[in-house]
């Protein structure tokens, strides 16, 4: 019996079961803290008609952007897109659907999906195109719109360190959307820079408890920088 050991030996195994038409929730913000290996594996598998829920869609040739090359993405749910020419082309050609969602609402929709909250109210987007067609409700004299949770068939997540039980910690701002993504997948895959033994991480300092993690893999990461800004 393997108990709580979530470690798998290959990305093939990590992404096994992904099928055409599925929804994949991806952690990451811009190119920071993105599950590079899982994305590469999806490209390799050639899975099509995917709905991808991620704050951004990478850039040309890196991150989720590589899934555009073979038109694997049917729909993106994001707060900010279009850092890549290919995205723009496919969008304008009607080959790609985009559901723009405010960043905080997107984060909360993922959290809600993982937390058994089917819907919540937020003032964000009220009176804007985002609120069109959504229920409006007043609380304490202010108007809010109802937003529904998001869950995915798969969630792909980039951590820093994890123990073999799938307890994960994130590094710096590479945390971003990853903890919520991890909770919202029917199958959650976490790739990390280092796998350690249970007991090596402080129990009170774990960002994602192993209960959310189905498969864990150690990867190597390019960590491309989108906007390298330095001071003298």
């Amino acid at each position, binding site marked *: 019996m393997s108990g709580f050991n979530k470690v798998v030996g290959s990305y093939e195994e990590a992404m096994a079961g992904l099928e055409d038409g599925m929804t994949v929730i991806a952690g990451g913000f811009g190119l920071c803290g993105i599950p590079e290996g899982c994305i590469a594996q999806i490209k390799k598998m050639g899975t099509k008609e995917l709905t991808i829920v991620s704050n951004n869609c990478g850039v040309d040739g890196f991150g989720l952007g590589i899934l555009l090359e073979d038109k694997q993405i049917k729909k993106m749910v994001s707060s*900010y*897109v279009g850092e890549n020419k290919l995205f723009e082309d496919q969008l304008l050609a009607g080959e790609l659907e985009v559901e723009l969602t405010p960043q905080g*609402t997107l984060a909360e929709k993922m959290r809600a999906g993982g937390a058994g909250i089917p819907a919540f109210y937020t003032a964000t987007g009220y009176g804007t195109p985002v609120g069109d067609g959504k229920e409006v409700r007043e609380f304490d004299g202010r108007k809010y719109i109802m937003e529904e949770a998001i869950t995915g068939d798969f969630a792909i997540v980039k951590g820093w360190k994890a123990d073999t039980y799938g307890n994960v910690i994130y590094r710096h701002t590479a945390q971003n959307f990853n903890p919520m993504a991890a909770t919202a997948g029917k199958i959650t895959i976490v790739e990390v820079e280092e796998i350690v033994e249970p007991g090596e991480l402080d129990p009170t300092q774990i960002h994602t408890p192993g209960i959310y993690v189905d498969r864990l893999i150690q990867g190597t990461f390019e960590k491309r920088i989108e906007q390298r800004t330095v001071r003298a």
Partner: protein
Amino acid sequence: MALSREQLAMRVAQELQDGFYVNLGIGIPTLVANYVPEGMEVMLQSENGLLGMGPFPTEEEVDADMINAGKQTVTTITGASIFSSAESFAMIRGGHVDLTVLGAFEVDVQGNIASWMIPGKLIKGMGGAMDLVAGADNIIVTMTHADKHGNSKLLNECTLPLTGAGCIKKVVTDLAYLEIEDGQFILKERAPGVSVEEIVSKTGGKLVVPDNVPEMNV
């Protein structure tokens, strides 16, 4: 004379208070960080999940895992905290950020703001802007008073799709500082050397001009 980008930032910086947690948008708002008054401490919130953003890193300090909401490499100040984007927007949506500064295409007398989408142009998305305007009690919009064609950006009703409804109370433009109250702009200050007449002529929305409109101190 119309304010320069730096002067706009300087004027906005006068709204800072000691101990403020502040979220600065991309562009002119970012420059505000350069004009924090001597001896005053403010802490910058970056909506990807960072409270206590520091300056850009040195070449040696550059770290792909340490970026701000503009995806730029940054550093942290002593006493910073780093968290998930859900926690970050819980802070923002919950009204815990003391001041938010952001740009706009248009603002109107109802406090509506349009800043993310121009129909006909490719839409990139709202990012965190809708959450920021919905969450903050205290927002300053900073922008030019008119667009490059001379059309006023201070209107009776925004023509572009909104970012938020009824949430803006303060606007700093290159010509003036205005407040929004009871469905009208109130002219509070003029940019140095700019006449009330020029401001009136370039303001599309209903404008109240008090007897005395002092010059800004920038």
